[in-house]
Every structure is written in C-alpha cells, then in structure tokens.
C-alpha cells in the first residue's frame, strides 16, 4: 500500500498454479502483479523496450524449463535493471552456494519453497519500496539536470561562484560586470532552480 498504486510485481514461474496463487495472494494485499510462464516470455517484454518507470519487482523461479531463472537474471544484470527491479528468487531446493552467489551479484532475496507467504509479501513490499525510492531519486536528478540546462552561460557562471560562497561584489569583479547585474542573474538562478537560498542551491547541486 505504501509502495503506491502503480507498483507492479512481475511473477515468472513455469507452474501455472503457483504463479496464479502468488498473484492472488498479492492481490489480497492490494498489490498488482503480472504473471509470465517462463524466462523467454519475460525476456520478450524486456526486448520490447521495457523501462522501469514505476516501482516494480520480480519473483523468479530458479528451476524452469527453457530459460532458467539464473539465465534471466544474467540478462537483467546485463541491462542494468536489477537495481530498479529487485529480484526475489523462489526455489524448491535450498542450494546455499547458489543463493549466496545470487545475492552477492545483486539479487534482493532468496526464498525457499514452501515459503511463509506473508513474509514473502513483506519482502515484496520492501523490494517495491526500494524500487520506488530508487525511481524517485532518479526522477529528482532528471528534474535537476533539466533545470540546469535552462540556465544561460552567464547565469551558470554566477551560480558556480554563488555556490563557492562568494559575495556579489566579488562575483561582479570576477565576471567584470556590475553588482546590479549579478543580483539580477542570481535572482534568476534562484528562480529557475526553484531554491530560496544559496545554501539550498549548494545542496542541490552537490547531490548531482
């Protein structure tokens, strides 16, 4: 619920009853899900230009006919999707070395069947939260970058000096313009970057 309405849980499992039961369970906790019957089906979605615009996570069965869960995980790694789409592996056979390896390589979690269902849903929610947070951070950065591109050359120079903490008079000296002009530029930078003070501006730029 906290993860938001637009969050999606992808379920990839070759066993139809298992994936439907999981989807149903998630629905009972108000989580949307999409089910796929195998690695190839999900891969096809990725191929067709999937981009994680909303929070999501992946419940992935390790042992499947066709493309196995491990192979699919490798593809996700290659596409750099593992961060925004945390992967929770599901397996019937606890294989500690494989589990450790997968977690080291970036898997979110590793659940052994039969799992404690609500605990799994809790982990799913945590994964979605993390996905949402990542997406939010990524969006913020994008907004900031767009704002920066709106600044003129002169405004950007003024902004840099402002961040360094230089007073207006010094900025005017350095840029060989009048103090009055500096003040105008400064006000514009504040306006465009949607900040109210030089400290706020400095924090914002440093987060980039």
């Amino acid at each position: 619920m906290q993860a938001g309405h637009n969050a999606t849980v992808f379920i990839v499992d070759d066993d139809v009853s298992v994936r439907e039961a999981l989807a149903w369970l998630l629905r009972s906790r108000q989580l949307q899900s999409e089910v796929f019957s195998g690695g190839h089906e999900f891969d096809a979605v990725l191929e067709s230009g999937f981009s994680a615009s909303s929070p999501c996570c992946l419940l992935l069965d390790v042992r499947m006919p066709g493309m196995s869960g491990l192979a699919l995980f490798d593809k996700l790694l290659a596409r750099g999707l593992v961060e925004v789409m945390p992967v929770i592996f599901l397996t019937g056979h606890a294989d500690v070395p494989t589990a450790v390896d997968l977690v080291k390589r970036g898997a979110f979690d590793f659940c052994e069947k039969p799992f404690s269902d609500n605990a799994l849903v809790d982990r799913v929610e945590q994964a979605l939260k993390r996905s949402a947070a990542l997406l939010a951070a990524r969006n913020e950065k994008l907004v900031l970058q767009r704002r920066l591109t709106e600044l003129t050359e002169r405004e950007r120079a003024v902004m840099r000096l402002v961040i360094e903490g230089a007073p207006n008079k010094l900025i005017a000296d350095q840029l060989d313009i009048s103090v009055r002009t500096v003040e105008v530029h400064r006000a514009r930078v504040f306006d465009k970057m949607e900040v109210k003070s030089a400290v706020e501006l400095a924090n914002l730029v440093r987060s980039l």
Partner: protein
Amino acid sequence: MSAAALPAQSAPVRAWRRLAASKRSSLWGLLIALVAAMLVTLVWLAGRYEASQVQSRLDRDTADALADLRSALTRNAQSLQALQSGRPTPDSWSNDAAALLREHREWMRIEWRNAGLETIASADSPFRPSVFARFGRGNAQADVALACGNARRVSGPAYSSSYFLPQLDGMGLQVMELCVPQIANGQPTGYVVATYSLTEILSDLVGPQLTRSKQVAFTEADGTRLALHGSARRGSRIFTSQQLLDLPGNTMLLRMDSWRGAPDLFPNVLTALVTAMSIALLAVLVLLARDARRRLQAERDLADALAFRKAMEDSLVTGLRARDRQGRITYVNPAFCQMLGFSAEELLGHTTPPPYWPPELAGEYLKRQEIRLSGQKAPPREGYESVFMRKDGSRFPVLIIEAPLINKDGVQTGWMSAFLDISEQRRVEELSRASQERLQATARLATVGEMASLLSHELNQPLAAISSYATGSINLLNLQTAGAGAAATEFDALGEIEVAMRRIAEQAERAGKVIKSVHDFVRRRDQEREPMAPQALLDAIMPLVSLQARKVGVPVRIRVEDGLPAVVCDSTMVEQVLLNLARNAMQAMDQARVSDPSLAIEVRAIAGTLAAQSGKAWVEFSVADLGPGIPPEIQRQLFTPFFTTKSEGMGLGLSLCRTVVEQHGGSLRFEPNHPQGTIFRFTLPAEAAGRGAN
C-alpha cells in the same frame, strides 16, 4: 625323479663336460689309429709270413731238385759204367748206347774212348741232329781230356766244366762232359764220355712237379746263367733260391725262381682272413663310433629336454607335488617350495602329515588323503580348495588339482598335484565383490535420492499454491474483520475467498495425483514381468553363489525338474530372492561350522490344493541347507522388517524376499530340513501355456 633336488648345472661342470667330450673324441681317434696301425701291421706280417713260407718252400723245392739231380746224375754214371760190362764189342756197345740214348734225353752223345782218349765207338742222341755238326768234336777234346784226367785221378766219374756249343740253326747249347773211367787193376783201360746238355738236365732230371710255375736255371758262381728251364713271368713278384751243385770237376749253382701269379693285395687265405677280419673290425668300430655318437646326441637331447623341463618347472608359478601311494612326497618344484617357505629337502620323503597342513585341519585332510589314496573317489577335475600353512605359520587358500601318476607300465604309482595360491585372487574377488556391493548400494541410494528430489519438487508446487491461497484468504478475512473500509468495497472478498478455496481443493487433488503417480511407478514393475525358464534364473545367480560356496567350502547341488514351464516373474527381483536365500543358507552353515555342509537348490512344478484353487500352475523353488535350523523364538520374527541375527545385516532381506514373492502372487515359507537345517520354499506362477488363461 626329483629334478628339483638336482644341483643346478654350474659353469665348471659344463666346462668339464666340454673337456670330457673333446677327450672322448680324441680317444676315439687314437683308438681308430691304433686299430688301423694294428691292422696294417697284421696284414704286413701276414704278407711277410706268406713270403717267408713261399721262400722256404722254394728252398725246399730247390733242395729236392738238387737231390733229384744228384741221384739222377749218379744213376746215369752207373748206367754208363754198366755199358762197359761184359766186354762189349764196338757194335754191341753202339747198340746199347743207342738204346741208352733213347732213354736219356739229357745226353747228346756217348763215346767209348780208349785209355789214350781215342774214340772207339760213339752214339748220338736220336732226338736231335748231331750237336757237334757245326762245332766239330775235336774242339771239345780239351774238355774231354780235363774230365777224363779228373776221372782217372779220382777213379770215378768226373765232369768237365760247361762250354757253349753253337748249333747249325744259329742257336747254341751249353753242354758239359761226363767221363766215366774203366779201371782194371788200378789202371784206366778206357773211358765212357757222355755229353750232357744242361738244359735237358734241367727239363728231364728235375721232377716236373718241382719245375712247374718255376724257372730253374744253372748259373756259375758269378751269376752267369748257363741254362734255363721254364719261363719267367714279367711283372710278378719273384722269389729266388740257390743251391750249390758240386760235381767232381765242376761246380754250378742251381737257381730256382718262383713267382706269384698276380700282384695280390691278399696273397693268401691268412692275409685275406686277417684283412677281412680287420675290415670287419673297422666296420664294427665305425658302427660303434656312430652308435656312440648317436648315444651322445641322445644324451645331449636328453640333457636339453631335462634343462627345458627344469626351466619350465622353475618358471611355473603353479606348485607341483608328487606323492607315492603311501602318501610320501616324492617330488616338489621350486614354486611349491616358495609358496610354502619350506625347502625341497625338508619336504621330500616327508610322510603324512606334511608340515604344511594346518594342525587344526590335519584330521580332515588325513581323511581326504585316505580316500584319495584308496582310489575310491576321483578328485574333481576342476580342482578343490584347501588351506595350507606356510613355514611361518600363516594360512593361505590353495586350489588343488590332482591327477593320477601312472608309470610306463600303466600302473598307478601315486598322485601328481598342482597347487595355485589363490589368496591374491581371493583378495581381489573379495575387493571386487565389496566394491560391487558398495556400487549397488550407491546406485540404490542415488535412485532413492533422485526419486525423493523429484517427489519433493512435484509436491512442493501444489503445497506452495495451497499455502498461498490459504494465506491470501486469511489476509482477506482479516481485512474484512478489521473494518469494512474502502478496500472491501473495491474487493469482493467473499468471492475471492471462494475462488481461493476452489483452487486449494484443486491443488490438493494435484498433490494426491503426485502421490498416486509414485505408487504407479512402483507398480509399473509388474509390467516388466516376463516368462523366464527356471534354469535361466539359477544360471544368473550361480556365479555369485559358487563364489561364496567355494569360499566357505560348501558343495552346491542343483536339481531342476525336467520339462518345467517358464515362470512369469520380474527376473531381477526373483534372482535377488534366490541369492538372498542361498547366501543365508551358506552363512548359517558357515557360522555353525557344520562338518559336512551342503546346499541344495531345487525347482519343481507343484500340483495340489494351491494349484487347484487358483486355477494356475505353480513352480516351487526350494533352498535347503544342513545348518543348525531356526530356533522357534526367531521363527516368529523372521519376516519382520529390520529384524536380524547378523551383526552386519539390515534385517530387510527376508522381509523383502517375502514382499517380492507375494507381489508375484506366490508365497514364501520355511520348514525344518531332515536331518537338520532349514528349507525355504517359494512359489511363482508358471506361464499359462496350454490353458489360454490371460
């Protein structure tokens, strides 16, 4: 017999033999040379002897001839003297003289001369013309005078020396004069002079048997030949003998030459005999030498064969031992000694019990040996196993193969036995069996593990789904009770729960199917049943059974009824059952140390109530031992799983056996054997051949 006891042929011995061989050959050479020399000497001596024989005979002949001559000449002189008796007239004298001349060819002429040597009357030999025709009598006057002078001096007949008398035909004669005086009152009154031809003397006065194949001649002392009779043969060996003929007034040598017909290698019988014997001797020598050489060759061949055999025996890893009929060891080979650690000297001649019998088994072995030596029971052709003791006291298993030792007369003199140390083989067999059993166990475990893994996955899926639905339903119910909020309106909770319950039921059914499929998998073995000949089932397990039987020394007897139908069974399982029962039986006898163990496996068709009830034919397998039997308190628990009397057993054998048999529709039971032991019997359905059932 005991080649092992022979010392090895060392280098000095070989050298000595070579030396002896060369010595032998030089001795042979010497012998042949000596014999040849002796033979040559013999032949030469024989030749010499013969020559001397011939010579002495010739000498004798010459002496005879001389005696003949002397007596003939004396007689002739007397004949001439007789001519003058009775006062002859010249006419009557001439008649008498002519008559004499006819009798004596050696005289050429007889004259009657007076004291003054004048011829009164004369007569010539009628056999030839007058010899003085050419020469003239007057020329011989000197010789006549010489002879008569001598005659007058000795008052007896005297001879002149011989002289040559040429003849009309150009030849000549050697003649001499004989003068016989007529003495009256001490005064010669006249002389009778006879002219002798020397040649005729030789031909007429010497006996013809003496002159045959000889040449007789008169020679003077200096060798000048005066007269010759007989002819010489050229190229022949000449023997010569000379005797002096001294006549009053003349002395000549009578020379006799004898020859032998042809130059002969074997001049006479003796030489021929000696030569023949020599040749025979040489031939015998040659034969002997050849025989000796053959013998030598045979000896060498024999030595080679012996060396070959010895090398063969030495190279054998099989121990060989021969015993005579009293059980005494007469021969052992090195492998046997090495196997036991005893030396050949320690073993040879040893009587029962030999030092390699383990003391605790000696009684049993003694019994076996008595049976063997008495010839009652032939040893098994494939051999039998036994345990021997090395010198250090360690025991080891051997495989013994025995065969009767039969001499060239066809009489059995003992037993020859071959021994194979099978401890290594035993160890390898043990190892391979252990590893095979381990492998089988591993394979079984692997199958079980695989099955378990498959089962867990198959069951996990529906269980996971059920769990999910159940949890979800609880979630919904919680939501419902927590407060009929916004969630309840947008979510038909009851409908959802119904769906979930239905799904749960579906998944439970699925899990049930999984369990059933496992059951089906187990049942599927039923379909692998096929008709098998009972003999084939036994054949499959016999190698394993006999392996263990040999180890524990149990003879296995198998009896399969003729004309048995095939049994319908899962052969692998039934073989396991048979193997299990056979092993149990052998272990039971081995553990109880039964003195005369025996394992009997029988297969027969059974009729009777069981067959009548089921309407099927059955085949009964039985495995009987002579062990101690099964105590009643154990009998009750015999088929209980995990009940065992063996330290290493699992207690599953008999219970599994019964399960397998019962799965086939048969039954497994046991009963006491007579006089002791246990019989396990189980039945299997026979193939319904003629009945058309199934």
